[in-house]
């Protein structure tokens, strides 16, 4: 009997709720968006798109190895700007490369839940990024996923392939302009990090108060490969749920996840899930959450299946208001002897002592709180080029982060 097709599998999951997160009624969103025209030059992008992209760290300047901009359902601007990197939209890539079928829906199951199934049943839109064998660049590929129409269900399916020995940095900004009252973004991403390849993937979200967001990410890392995955969300969102899963499949593979959340409202359920399946693999997951309102569930799960695997989880939360909730759920699952797995989790308030210390230097209570909150969110991110590190720092530092 032939295996069911992607479409058939997706169909069976049409009503399948996600394991985590608030359930979203897909029917309440529109799945069709008016198409946008192709934009050849980055400088010709509409001003509001450029502005929104800049706001989430996507500056399409000379220091860019590739660019991808998607407005609603249309990939409007796709560029490869460094010989070692190829950027295409996925529909084009699927036509160009037959081998892509070996990657398409291999890390995220099309019937995983109704959100994924919805993407699987839609025409492909999203980026295909390939770092060619042995090619390295510190200039990042920059992508912007722009949800510009109210009530739209934006579906994206991305593929990243870092071929053997390559180095690739990707920064993705996902955003809605202020005039979009309501929307849904579902982003499926499948990352293949081959032998000895190094990838950093940084995602910055800036959504609206009535936007539901459901990223679905699967990652596989082969022997000696590494991933530094960074996620930043400092602006309000209605609901956000994601639990990216990375499998360390080859000897010595390394994954590190950094998550920075500042919550003012809504329901955010985020975390990372790492399977350590090969010897000498290691994984680290660090999340810093500040809530002045809204519910944040910070998950982390590490499963060690072979001797010698090392994993560390850190979920630290600052809860600054009675209106907020931080629920930290670190999970360690050891399935072999000789593992080294640990976690630390803490939820608390700003220390009086630190506050007084800064106030003794002349800072007001508000200034001192802001300095402490920014410092708390300033996670030391490893494996990123200096410029990108600085860019991320600028984003976490510029926000007007207050106590309650």
């Amino acid at each position: 009997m032939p295996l069911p097709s992607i479409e058939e599998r997706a169909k069976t999951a049409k009503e399948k709720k996600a394991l985590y997160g608030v359930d979203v009624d897909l029917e309440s969103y529109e799945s069709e968006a008016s198409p946008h025209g192709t934009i050849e030059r980055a400088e010709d992008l509409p001003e509001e798109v450029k502005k929104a992209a800049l706001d989430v760290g996507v500056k399409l300047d000379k220091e860019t190895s590739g660019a991808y901009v998607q407005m609603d359902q249309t990939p409007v601007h796709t560029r490869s700007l460094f010989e070692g990197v190829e950027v295409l939209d996925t529909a084009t890539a699927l036509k160009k490369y037959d081998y892509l079928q070996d990657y398409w829906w291999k890390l995220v199951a099309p019937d995983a839940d109704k959100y994924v199934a919805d993407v699987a049943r839609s025409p492909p839109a999203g980026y295909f990024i390939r770092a060619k064998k042995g090619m390295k660049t510190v200039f990042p590929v920059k992508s912007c996923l722009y949800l510009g129409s109210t009530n739209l269900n934006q579906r994206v399916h991305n593929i990243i392939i870092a071929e053997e020995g390559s180095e690739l940095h990707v920064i993705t900004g996902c955003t809605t302009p202020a005039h979009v009252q309501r929307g849904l973004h579902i982003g499926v991403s499948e990352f293949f990090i081959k032998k000895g390849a190094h990838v950093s993937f940084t995602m910055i979200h800036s959504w609206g108060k009535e936007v539901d967001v459901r990223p679905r990410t699967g990652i596989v890392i082969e022997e000696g490969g590494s991933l530094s995955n960074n996620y930043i969300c400092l602006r309000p969102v209605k609901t956000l749920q994601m639990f990216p899963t990375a499998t360390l499949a080859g000897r010595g593979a390394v994954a590190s996840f950094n998550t920075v959340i500042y919550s003012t409202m809504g329901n955010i359920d985020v975390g990372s899930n790492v399977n350590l399946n090969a010897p000498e693999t290691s994984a680290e997951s660090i999340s810093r959450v500040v809530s002045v309102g809204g519910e944040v569930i910070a998950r982390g799960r590490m499963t060690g299946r072979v001797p010698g695997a090392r994993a560390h989880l850190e979920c630290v939360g600052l809860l600054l208001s009675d209106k907020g909730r931080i629920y930290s759920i670190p999970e360690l699952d050891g399935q072999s002897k000789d593992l080294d797995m640990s976690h630390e989790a803490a939820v608390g308030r700003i220390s009086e002592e630190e506050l007084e210390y800064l106030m003794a230097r002349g800072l007001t209570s508000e200034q001192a709180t802001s300095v402490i909150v920014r410092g708390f969110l300033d996670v030391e991110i490893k494996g990123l080029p200096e410029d990108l590190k600085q860019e991320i720092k600028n984003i976490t530092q510029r926000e007007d982060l207050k106590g309650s």
Partner: protein
Amino acid sequence: MLEIEDLSVSIGGKQILKDVNLRIGPGETHALFGPNGTGKTTLLNAIAGIPRYAVDSGKIIFKGMDITQMPMDERAKLGIGMAFQRPPAIRGLRLKDLIKIINPQADAAAILKKMDFDAFGEREVNRGFSGGEVKRSEMVQLLAQQPDLVMLDEPDSGVDLENIKLIGGAINQLTQKDIRPSSRTKSGIIITHFGHILEYMKTDRAHVMVGGSIVCSGNPSEILEQIKKSGYEGCVACLCPA
């Protein structure tokens, strides 16, 4: 500069200071001695205005103003600075950034260099610092703040001899000991147990605190000598008999 009148302070309902009287004139630097747990730190913290330190009675007058009820950041802006005995570490805040926050006009590089602390500008404030490094971090911050009244809570504890000299020099600078006494306007008060630091800085007067009150005042070297010879009680009995 500073006048403390019949000050009584409690923490969590427990009285620590009882009827303390102290006067520090402009340009004067005073030393405060006393056994552990006698209320020296409490006095400095109460002057700084840390909210946990409740003033039950008495007054704190600074530059002619009653600051007894003033919030601590306003006291700092008015010119009160403090080197904490055990300051906290601040995650994610770099020392050079804190210098700029304290005083945007400050020359951070010069201040760090002065305290032989260049390498620490990029470090998070007090994080992973040794005991001696913490004390230099405190001095760096005070040099940026340039307070009119500098309060030093054991700036020499845990510090090696070479750095004690460096810290003493910074205190002399903060309290204008490099200019003639009649021109000095900045004042200081220092808590120390060992007195080593007093070899490297100038003090004008010393006080002994016992049981939450100042029981003896006088010449710093005389008092220190008596304490070394006969302990705090002996010193008080000898120099300031009831």
